[in-house]
């Protein structure tokens, strides 16, 4: 019993990159991960890279899930990775979802994104990936 209590729930920050306000997708993922037993913090809209890193650090999350629908990921994801490093989150798992064109996937992975979940992804596949690859601190 004692060890089970000590096992912290996986903490996930979900947030939109940039200025796009279409947050249906990211909120549906938030609901799914929460039903899958994770602690989900939804960062809301219009946060800049530095603000995203700040929330991630304050909430000591295991995973940062970014949602991009407006083709801003090529400009903003590398900036977000930089900011995460600055606040000491070098090894936080970063996931990217939304409209990510095929040729951008390797570019995003090279920038440090662990996995990309594009159009048509099943919710349970995201939860499964996180559970398999994250060991809560």
């Amino acid at each position, binding site marked *: 019993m004692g060890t089970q209590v000590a096992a912290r729930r996986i903490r996930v920050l979900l947030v939109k990159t940039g*200025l796009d*306000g279409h947050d*249906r997708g990211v909120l549906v993922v938030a609901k*799914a991960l929460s039903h899958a037993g994770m602690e989900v913090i939804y960062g809301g809209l219009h946060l*800049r890279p530095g603000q995203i890193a700040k929330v991630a650090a304050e909430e000591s999350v295991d995973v940062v899930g970014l949602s991009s629908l*407006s083709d*801003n990921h090529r400009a903003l994801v590398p900036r977000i990775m930089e900011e995460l490093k600055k606040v000491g989150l070098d090894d936080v798992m970063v996931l990217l979802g939304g409209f990510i*064109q095929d040729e951008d996937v390797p570019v995003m992975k090279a920038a440090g994104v662990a996995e990309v979940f594009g159009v048509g992804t099943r*919710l349970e596949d995201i939860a499964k990936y996180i559970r398999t690859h994250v060991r809560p601190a």
Partner: protein
Amino acid sequence: MFDKDFLEQLRQQQAAWAAAHQGSFEQEVKKEFVSEAGIVTRRVYTPLDLADAGVDYFEDTGFPGDFPFTRGLSPIGYRAGLWKIAQYSGQSTPEECNQLWRDLAAAGLNTVYAAYDLPTQLGYDPDHPMAEGEVGRTGVSLVSLRDWEIAFDGIDLGKTMVSTVCNAPGAMVIAMNLLTAQKQGVDLKVLQGSSQNDVLKEYTARGNFIFPPEPSMRLVVDALAYCSSVAPNFYPITVCSVHQSEFGANHVHEVAFALANGIAYVESAVNRGIDVDVIGPGIMWTTSHDHHAFFHEIAKLRAMRRLWARIMRDRFKARKPESMMCRLYSSVGGTSLMKEQYLNNIARSALAALAGALAGAQRIDLRTYDEQWGIPTKDAEITNIRCQQIVGYECGVGETVDPLAGSYYVEWLTKEMEGRFVEEIEKVDQMGGTLRAIESGYIKRTMLDDAYRYQLGVEAGEIPRVGHNMFRQDDDQSRPVRVYRADPSVEQRRIEAVKELRRTRHDREVSRTLKALRAAAAEPATSDNNLMPPIIDAVQAYATIGEMCDVFRDVWGEFKEPKVF
């Protein structure tokens, strides 16, 4: 609507028919056919269903062009010409966008449905740090009157209608539209066009808000009042339901929440002492009409038109028919399309166009076959224009007005939808109106629950999506020949353009007009203090959207989202 003896005879015969075919009924693939909004579709409809639902021909259906406009706004429907063919489009710089819009106009487009980039929609100029990575991506970057002059060069605003999609800064965009038309020599009294300018749905469904709801509503009402005299054929607001639909709301929530927003705008004007018949004719709607649940979409729009007419007449005591008309400038959202086997989307678009036409829409706008792959290409946009032309010209849907009227099913469904919209609007009224329902998070949470249920339904295969959760092709390698990619140099070019503008305009005029704007915004709204004239002055001095929004941000503050999750 039907004779009592006839209905009794029908009731007996229908019961006998049902008893005789009981065996066949057991072969049905589902126990119940239920819509996402919970409406159960019956096996067959007869006059009995209309009688039981209380449908009255004169009260509920009536004639085209007459109250309650169930059968359409015009007595002749499309017999005088098709609906307006629109295509949501816009990208990169004003110069490049000008070429795109000229090409689309040459293909038969009669409404430029202008997509703005995100920085402009959020009130930031291209050189603002918040704009980084987003300039000219999801739409065109148009921040000043200079940009408008370039973007619409050679496009006659007296002939081509412009519908702008920019909401929080909507009043400023209207000023640019009016001034550009004036410079082209178009008489504002006959100028057609519209602005989306529906800020309320930004708080719940689209996320491009800047200011808190109250001052945002003030800008909308000011634009409605101003245009009613200066540009009476221009629609300063387009109340939307398509974004609620795209957020995942079911049909009932989608329309009820849009109508509740419409009520809030009218109420806000009336509370300021403005006659409902002054602003009523300036309101248009952007609804959704996708191919899913085809008959539900059509019934939904007929019911919406009827209910808005009743709301305007009974709740707001409007007297002019034009105030009661729910003008359907209808659209389709990209969520109805699939990434897999992308060419299938052309069939979906054509069916969506048919749904819009059968509902009697004033305008139809479709999403492109490559929408799930990125920003639409011009080829795909032209294909959509052709889809509409095929439905309009080849199918001949417009030969008679409201061809589905009198269908037992469609009339029953229209009545059923209307009843459910009324119930949901009453719920919002009881919460204290739409502003309270936005602030408490009720509206967004309700739609999110619908969206989540939809996603689970698709993943479970209960909601059919061809190519995605049925008839998948595992070896499917299809992808659009060309996928649009934004030119990374656009951002820098736009930054230079706005800097150049600031160097060449008259600084003193800009600061004088911005100062006047600030003073007007700080004073309460009255009939003598309409914000449109000072906005027009600032735009005329080539003040930018970013500069004007900074003034308003300073005076009014910014909206803080309620927690919905």
